[in-house]
């Protein structure tokens, strides 16, 4: 375990492994609910906030409330006060996969020096415009390119990236259907 102990990617893998064991026998504590609220500003400009969530049988709050501004670009005839909602999906996927790489690397005793992900989502906007009913609204495909500098072989780095996808919440949410309920209260 010397190799594992002497490397530090800043991930507390021991705590995660302990949580995994503890939650095996307590599935109810593993149920988390994440929340956000979105307020309409004007036009297609919105402000979303994220502060509280629940899990491990209790309510929790982040250290600070986070605010996310979304809008649409000027080429969409909008005010461009912030990024497009669909770009937030890239943000979510990139940060989830990168966090996964750090965690898996820590667990496998691989010291990371730098990790950079570049994401591209291919989007045919005729879908959202209703210009062609055969075109879907969402991404046609997403490409993620990782540039990783680490004390490991190319094969080990590829295995890190593959394992990170296997355990990624956002990768799963994007690649598999999710039941979505929208209601007016």
């Amino acid at each position, binding site marked *: 375990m010397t190799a594992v102990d002497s490397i530090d990617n800043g991930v507390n893998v021991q705590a995660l492994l302990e949580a995994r064991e503890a939650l095996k026998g307590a599935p109810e504590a593993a149920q988390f609910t994440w929340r956000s609220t979105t307020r309409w500003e004007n036009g297609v400009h919105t402000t979303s906030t994220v502060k509280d969530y629940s899990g491990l049988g209790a309510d929790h709050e982040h250290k600070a409330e986070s605010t996310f501004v979304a809008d649409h670009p000027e080429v969409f005839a909008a005010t461009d006060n912030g990024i497009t909602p669909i770009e937030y999906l890239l943000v979510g996927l990139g940060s989830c996969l990168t966090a996964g790489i750090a965690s898996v690397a820590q667990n496998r005793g691989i010291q990371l020096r730098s990790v950079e992900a570049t994401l591209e989502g291919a989007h045919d906007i005729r879908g959202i415009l209703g210009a062609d009913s055969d075109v879907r609204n969402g991404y046609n495909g997403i490409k993620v390119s990782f540039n990783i500098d680490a004390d490991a072989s190319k094969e080990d780095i590829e295995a890190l990236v*593959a394992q990170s996808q296997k355990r990624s919440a956002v990768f799963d949410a994007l*690649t598999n*259907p999710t039941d979505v309920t929208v209601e007016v209260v």
Partner: protein
Amino acid sequence: MAASHFLSERSVDHVVLERGEVANSWRRERWDSLRLLTPNWQSRLPGHHYGGPDPDGYMTMPEVVGFIDRFAALTGAPVRTGTTVTSVRRTDDGYRVTTDQGELACRTVVIASGACNRPAVPALSEAVPDEVVQLTPFDYRNPGRLPDGGVLVVGASATGVQLAAEIQRSGRPVTLSAGEHVRMPRVYRGRDVLWWMDAAGVWDQRYDEVPDLTRARSLASPQLVGTRERATLDLNALTELGVELVGRASMVRDGELLFSGGLRNVIRLADLKLDRLLTAFDEWALESEVEADLKAPERFEPTRVPASTRLRLDLRGGAIRTIVWATGFRPDYSWLDVPVVDTKGRLDHDGGVVAGPGLYALGLPVLRRRKSTFIHGIEDDARDVIAHLDGYLRS
């Protein structure tokens, strides 16, 4: 029957209960073309080896039945055929076993009913429209019995790839839905890949040395087929046959089956694992005496992934007439009235020693070693487990 062999050796009075005939599941619950994944020379039972002319071949099901029949005759196992166990209950001094032929009282019970009693079919199958015929490997015999037209095979284990190949060859276009899978070449450096698993010691790894035992015990069977040509049947071979690859089946919505967009990653995982396995083989060979007899190390072409995979399939349009659920099997312990089965239907045991006193198990994946999954794995397992049982009886 392997247990019986060692019980007899230790003069422990016992009976073997069999619901049908000897080798029942091999006679009735397998498709026509199936052959063992292990080469004949590897088919070993205690005191009984393959003695035929083709040690590198793979037994057909009638040959397996003959092999096990001969073993039964050789051991003189006290088998009561046509006896279905309906209940096993704990008593003060052992167990009461109820069968459709009457009751038995015994001090110990060895559960050897297997890991593949029922096909495991995902819940999403319930939402498949009625016009699509749904089969499991237990119902499937040969492609000729399927309706003409497209077939979706779900699952890319040995079962899934074998059925996908033979159905595609019958002229029915096959779509194969693949989740995590285990890629293997049939032959590596001139030797059967299962020779390597045996010789390099992978199969001798003990259950308490396997890093993630739960995962090892639920791993899909490798993408192998036993043929005269010793052909490899990986996803590239299926693509060459014209099979269309899609991701894991996720859900049925509005009559459409939706597939995961994660196919590329499960394929990458399998390719990386294969390379690690071959590297381990090569490293072992360098240290062994056989290195000089082996062909040069090689690496196989990465699995080709379609540029864009299909994410949805209309089940009502008539393009798919049949779905074959090659999604694995699970054991059936519905007759076991002892609280030793977990919420996922798995037997709670430590290397075949079940949590209930005097209760034992044999013939489950990675029971005591990685090779426990295969026929030849039973000898060492049965010897160990019966030794424990004998010790329990004497204590």
